[in-house]
C-alpha cells in the first residue's frame, strides 16, 4: 500500500468497469490480489466524493465475507460511508458483521465491533447491544478496549435505548479491569458520555483516583491523557489527598507528548485549589514552569497553544513563569500568531528589573513588517509606561523615536498611547506635544484622531495655535465617525473654557452641529449638556469639564475572576486559545466549576483571584470644597463618564472587537464574518485576526 504507484488509483473510475473487475476477479484471483486493487480504486473514488460508487453497494456486501482482514477493512469503510444513504442495503451486511463478532480472531472481532457501531441505523444499534454485553467481558483486552469505546458510540446514537440497558454499569465496572489500556479507554468513554448526558454524574472517589494514577505509567501516551482528564472529576476531600495526588502525577510533566504535559498542568493547577500548604503550592508552581517553556521547542501550533495557556497560568499563579522574560522573545521566523502571543507575555512579565531589555526588544518589533504586530508592539510600549512608573520616561523616549519614523500606522498607534500616558501622568510630559503636532496630517484612523483631539483640547492653553488645529479637524465634522465627533465637541468646549477669546467662534458652531445636525442621541445629549452648562454657570462648567480624570491603569486587560477560574479548569483545550468563557465559544459544552469540599481553599482563592489590581478601576471623584455641592460632584462624574464614553461605547458595541484600529481592520475581508444559516448566525472564532481572541493589549 505504501508505494507511490497508488496515486493512479485516484483516477475517476466508471461504475460498470469497476463492477466487472470485481466480478471477473473470480476464482483465479490468488489471495484476492485483483479484488484488492479494485477495492482500493473504489475507496479512492469514494473519498473524492464520486457518489456513483454507491451503486456498487450490493457488490461490496458480497465481498465482505471474504476472510481477509484487508478486504474486510476496505469493505467496512465503504459500508460506514454509505450506510446512512442506503440503510436498506446496509442491513444485508448486518449478518456478516454479527458473525464476525464471534470470530476466533480478536482483530476481526474488534474490527467488526468498531464497524457495526459506526453505522447510525436503528437495527444496527439494537442488534449490537446483546453481543456488546458479552464482549465487555471478552478474553482479549483489545476487544474489551474496543467494546468500552463502542458503548460511548452507542450512547451517541441512541441514549434512551442505552440508558435502559446495563451497559453503562458494565462500563463502570471496566474501571476495575486488570489491563491499563482497557481502563483508560473506559474512562475516555465515560467522560464522553458524561459530556453529553443531562442525567449522568461522573465523580471519582479517592481510591479510584489513586488507582488510576497508579496505572498511569503503564498506559500509552493517549491513555495517559484520558486518565488525566478523568482526574478532573475527582474532588479532593482533604488537603493531603490533593497534595499526594498532585505529587504522584508530577512526573508526567516530563512526557514528550504535549497533551500529557498540558493536561497534567491542568490537573495540578486544579488540585492546588484544594491544597492548604503554601510551601507545597510554591514548590508545585516552580515545577510547572520549565515544562511549559519546553513546549516552545515543539511545532508552532503547540507553541501557540502553550503560550496561550501560559497567559492563563500566569494570571492565576503569577509564581509560575516568573523567571525569565527572554524565553518569550520572538524569533524572526515565528509565525505571526506565535509572535503576537509572545508579545502579550512579554508585556505581562515586564517589570522594573527587566524593562530595559524588554524595551529594546519591543523597539525591534516595532520596525517589523507585519502591521498588526507592529501596532501591538507600539501599544505595548505605551502601556508599559502606564504599568511601570519608573519606566515611563524611557517608554516615551522610545515612542518619540518611533514617531520620527513617520510611518503612518506607527504614528497613529503612538498617538493613542501617548494620550493615555498624559492621562496617567498629568503635567509631566507635555513637552512632547509639539512633536506630535508635527504629524497631524498622517492621522486617518478615528481612534488616533480622537486621541489627538483630546490632547489638543486638554492642553489648549499650552498649544499656541490650538484653535487653528482644532478648526482643521472641524472642517470635516459631519463626515467623521461619532467617536471623533464626540471628541471634537468636548475639545472645543475645553478650548473655550481655557481660552475664551479663541474658542468663542468655534463653540456655537459646534454646539449647533452637535445638537441640531445629528442623528446620534449620545452626541446630541452631550451637546445639550455642555450648552446648558456654559449658559448657566461658566465657572461650574470649568470645574466640571476640566476636572480631575479617573485614574487609568494598565491592568484592565485581565480576565475577570470567574472566567479565569473556569479557564483554568480547561487548560489545554480549544477555549484557552480564545481566552473566552467556554460557553461563549461552545454553547453546548457542559460548564465546569470548582466543586465544594472541606478541602477547598475558598478564602485563599478569593484573595488570589481578586487581587485589587484586577478590579475595574472605580472613578475617583474629588469633592471640591470651593463649590462643593452634590450636583457638582455628579456633574464631574458625568464628565468623567463622557470622557470614556467613546471608547467604552466601542467596546460595548463589539464585545469581540479587536480593540485597535477597529475601523481599518473591520473593512478588510475575513475580519468579522458571520455565516448565516436558517436559525441563528454562526459565529466564527478565529484567533488573532478575528474577533474573540482575548487580545490583552487593548485599552
Amino acid at each position: 500500500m505504501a508505494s507511490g504507484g497508488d496515486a493512479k488509483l485516484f483516477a475517476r473510475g466508471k461504475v460498470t468497469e469497476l463492477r466487472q473487475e470485481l466480478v471477473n476477479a473470480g476464482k483465479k484471483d490468488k489471495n484476492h490480489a485483483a479484488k484488492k486493487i479494485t477495492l482500493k480504486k473504489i475507496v479512492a473514488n469514494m473519498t473524492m466524493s464520486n457518489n456513483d460508487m454507491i451503486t456498487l453497494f450490493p457488490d461490496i456486501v458480497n465481498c465482505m465475507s471474504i476472510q481477509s482482514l484487508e478486504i474486510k477493512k476496505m469493505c467496512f469503510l465503504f459500508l460506514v460511508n454509505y450506510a446512512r444513504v442506503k440503510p436498506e442495503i446496509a442491513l444485508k451486511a448486518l449478518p456478516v458483521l454479527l458473525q464476525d463478532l464471534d470470530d476466533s480472531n480478536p482483530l476481526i472481532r474488534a474490527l467488526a465491533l468498531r464497524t457495526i457501531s459506526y453505522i447510525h441505523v436503528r437495527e444496527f444499534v439494537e442488534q449490537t447491544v446483546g453481543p456488546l454485553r458479552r464482549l465487555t467481558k471478552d478474553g482479549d483486552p483489545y476487544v474489551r478496549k474496543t467494546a468500552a469505546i463502542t458503548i460511548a458510540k452507542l450512547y451517541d446514537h441512541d441514549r434512551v435505548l442505552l440508558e435502559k440497558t446495563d451497559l453503562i454499569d458494565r462500563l463502570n465496572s471496566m474501571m476495575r479491569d486488570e489491563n491499563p489500556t482497557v481502563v483508560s479507554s473506559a474512562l475516555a468513554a465515560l467522560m464522553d458520555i458524561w459530556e453529553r448526558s443531562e442525567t449522568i454524574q461522573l465523580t471519582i472517589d479517592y481510591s479510584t483516583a489513586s488507582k488510576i494514577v497508579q496505572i498511569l505509567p503503564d498506559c500509552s501516551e493517549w491513555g495517559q491523557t484520558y486518565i488525566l482528564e478523568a482526574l478532573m472529576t475527582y474532588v479532593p476531600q482533604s488537603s493531603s489527598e490533593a497534595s499526594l495526588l498532585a505529587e504522584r502525577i508530577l512526573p508526567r510533566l516530563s512526557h514528550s507528548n504535549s497533551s500529557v504535559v498540558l493536561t497534567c498542568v491542568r490537573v495540578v493547577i486544579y488540585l492546588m485549589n484544594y491544597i492548604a500548604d503554601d510551601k507545597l503550592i510554591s514548590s508545585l508552581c516552580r515545577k510547572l514552569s520549565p515544562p511549559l517553556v519546553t513546549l516552545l521547542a515543539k511545532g508552532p501550533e503547540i507553541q501557540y497553544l502553550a503560550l496561550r495557556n501560559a497567559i492563563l497560568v500566569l494570571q492565576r499563579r503569577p509564581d509560575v513563569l516568573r523567571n525569565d522574560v527572554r524565553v518569550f522573545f520572538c524569533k524572526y521566523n515565528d509565525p505571526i500568531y506565535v509572535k503576537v502571543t509572545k508579545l502579550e507575555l512579554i508585556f505581562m512579565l515586564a517589570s522594573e528589573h527587566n524593562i530595559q531589555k524588554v524595551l529594546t526588544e519591543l523597539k525591534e518589533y516595532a520596525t517589523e513588517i507585519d502591521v498588526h504586530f507592529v501596532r501591538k508592539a507600539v501599544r505595548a510600549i505605551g502601556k508599559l509606561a502606564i504599568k511601570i512608573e519608573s519606566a515611563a520616561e524611557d517608554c516615551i523616549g522610545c515612542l518619540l523615536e518611533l514617531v520620527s519614523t513617520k510611518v503612518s500606522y506607527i504614528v497613529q498607534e503612538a498617538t493613542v498611547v501617548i494620550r493615555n500616558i498624559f492621562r496617567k501622568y498629568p503635567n509631566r510630559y507635555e513637552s512632547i506635544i509639539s512633536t506630535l503636532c508635527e504629524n497631524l496630517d498622517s492621522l486617518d484612523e478615528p481612534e488616533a484622531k480622537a486621541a489627538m483631539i483630546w490632547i489638543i483640547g486638554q492642553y489648549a492653553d499650552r498649544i499656541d495655535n490650538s484653535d487653528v488645529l482644532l478648526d482643521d479637524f472641524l472642517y470635516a465634522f459631519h463626515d467623521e465617525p461619532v467617536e471623533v465627533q464626540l471628541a471634537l465637541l468636548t475639545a472645543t468646549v475645553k478650548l473655550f473654557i481655557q481660552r475664551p477669546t479663541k474658542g468663542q467662534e468655534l463653540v456655537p458652531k459646534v454646539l449647533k452641529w452637535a445638537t441640531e445636525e445629528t442623528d446620534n442621541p449620545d452626541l446630541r445629549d452631550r451637546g445639550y449638556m455642555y450648552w446648558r452648562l456654559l449658559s448657566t454657570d461658566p465657572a461650574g462648567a470649568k470645574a466640571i469639564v476640566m476636572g480631575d480624570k479617573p485614574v487609568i491603569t494598565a491592568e484592565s486587560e485581565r480576565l475577570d475572576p470567574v472566567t479565569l477560574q473556569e479557564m483554568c479548569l480547561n487548560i489545554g483545550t480549544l477555549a484557552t486559545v480564545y481566552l473566552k468563557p467556554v460557553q461563549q465559544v461552545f454553547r453546548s459544552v457542559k460548564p465546569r466549576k470548582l466543586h465544594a469540599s472541606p478541602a477547598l481553599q475558598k478564602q485563599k482563592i478569593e484573595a488570589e483571584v481578586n487581587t485589587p489590581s484586577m478590579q475595574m478601576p472605580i472613578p475617583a471623584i474629588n469633592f471640591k470644597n470651593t463649590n462643593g455641592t452634590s450636583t457638582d460632584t455628579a456633574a464631574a462624574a458625568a464628565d468623567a463618564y463622557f470622557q470614556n464614553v467613546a471608547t467604552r461605547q466601542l467596546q460595548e458595541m463589539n464585545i469581540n472587537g479587536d480593540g485597535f484600529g477597529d475601523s481599518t481592520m473591520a473593512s478588510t475581508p475575513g475580519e468579522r464574518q458571520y455565516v448565516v444559516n436558517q436559525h441563528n448566525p454562526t459565529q466564527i472564532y478565529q484567533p488573532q485576526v478575528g474577533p474573540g481572541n482575548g487580545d490583552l493589549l487593548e485599552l
Partner: protein
Amino acid sequence: MISGILIFNQKGENLIFRAYRTDCRPRLADVFRIQVISNPQVRSPILTLGSTTFSHVKHENIYLVAISKGNANAALVFEFLYRLIQLGKSYFGKFDEEAVKNNFVLDFGYPQNTETDTLKMYITTEGVKTERTMEDSSKITMQATGAISWRRADIKYRKNEAFVDVIEEVNLLMSATGTVLRADVNGQIVMRAYLSGTPECKFGLNDRLLLDGDSAAGPVGNVAGTKATKAAAGSVTLEDCQFHQCVKLGRFESDRVISFIPPDGEFDLMRYRATENVNLPFKVHAIVNEIGKSKVNFSISVRSNFASKLFATNVVIRIPTPLNTAKVTETTTQGRAKYEPEQNNIVWKINRFSGQQEHVLQAEADLTSMTTHKAWSRPPLSLNFSLLMFTASGLLVRYLKVFEKANYSSIRWVRYATRNGSYEIRF
C-alpha cells in the same frame, strides 16, 4: 474528541476523509476549503465555526485537518496531527500529497496507538494469511493493550548494537550592540536500538540534576540527597527534559535514573533544554552602514569558537539586503558569496569552517532610488551550520548500560552533533 481527520492538497482537493463520529458531515470539507485554504487572511491554525473547530497543520504540500466538536483537548489534537505526519514519514519516507494513502487506527476520535513500529504490524503490505492469523493477531492485541505497547516480544539480533545521537540545536539572538539577548539549546537524544529480547537500558548524563532551582528542595523525591553528587566539575544544568513514553518517569523523578525498555529501531529518547553556559560555536560581528540613500556597506566577520581540530560543515550566512537593492559586489576571505535578489539576501557559503578561525565578507549594495522612502526594517542575519563532536550545552553521555535476561554483550555508539536552531544576529 476528534470527529474526523481530513487531508487536503494545496489546491483544496480532499484526499482523505475519515469520519469518526456522525457529526462529521462531508460538507465540512467544503467549509474548510472555503474558510481556510482559499482564504488568504487566515493567520491561525485554529478556526471555530459555531461549535465545530478545524485545527490544521501544514506539511510539505498537504493540509492535515482535525475536526472536533465542543471544547476538545487542543494539545491532543495537534500532537496527534504531528504523529500522523511522523507516521506518514516513516511509512513513505516522505509525507506529501503523493504519499497520502493508508489508514490509521483511531476509534471514535480517541487516538489509540501511534508508535510506528507497532502499527507496522497491523498494517502490512501483504494480506494476513488465514493460518497465521490466529497466533499473530492475539500477539498483536496483547501488544496493543499491554504495558509495553511500543515493543514486540520476539526481537532477535545476531549483533546487539545501540546507537545514541546527541543532537543539539543552538538558538541565539544577538542584539546590534553585540549583547546576547537569548542563547539556549534544544537538545535531542535519538537512539537506534538493535537489541534482542526485552532489554532494560540505563542511561547517564553529566547533568547537574538541578531542575529544582535554588534551595527549597521541595517535598518531592529525595532531590536534596542527589544534589551532593552534582559537584563534579564539567557538569551541565538542564533546564527541563522530556522523555519518550518508554522511559519510567517515576524513577526519573525519584532517583534521577533514566531507565527504559526501548522500542525497536529509531526513536526520540529524550529532549532537553539548556540555557546556562551555552558555548556559542560562532561569533558574528556585523557592521552595516547606509550611505545616503543609494548605498549600503556590509562588513561581516565570523569567528569560529571551537577547538581547532574540529570543523563545521555547510556553513551558510544569510545577510539581508534592502528591498530596493539593484546590485551587490562582494569579496570574501573564504567561501563563496552570492546575492539572491528573490530572497533579498547575500548568501555566503563556507563548506568547511575550521575551529579558531575568522573569515570576513565585505560587500557593497547599490540601491535603486524609490519614490517613497521607507526605512529599511533590517531583518536579522542568520547562520546555518552543522558541527560534529561538539555540544553547545557541554552535555556528555556518561554511560549506557543494557541489561537483558540472555546477558549478551552489546556494542554502544555515541555521536554528538550541534546544528543551528534560529541563530540570529541583529545589526
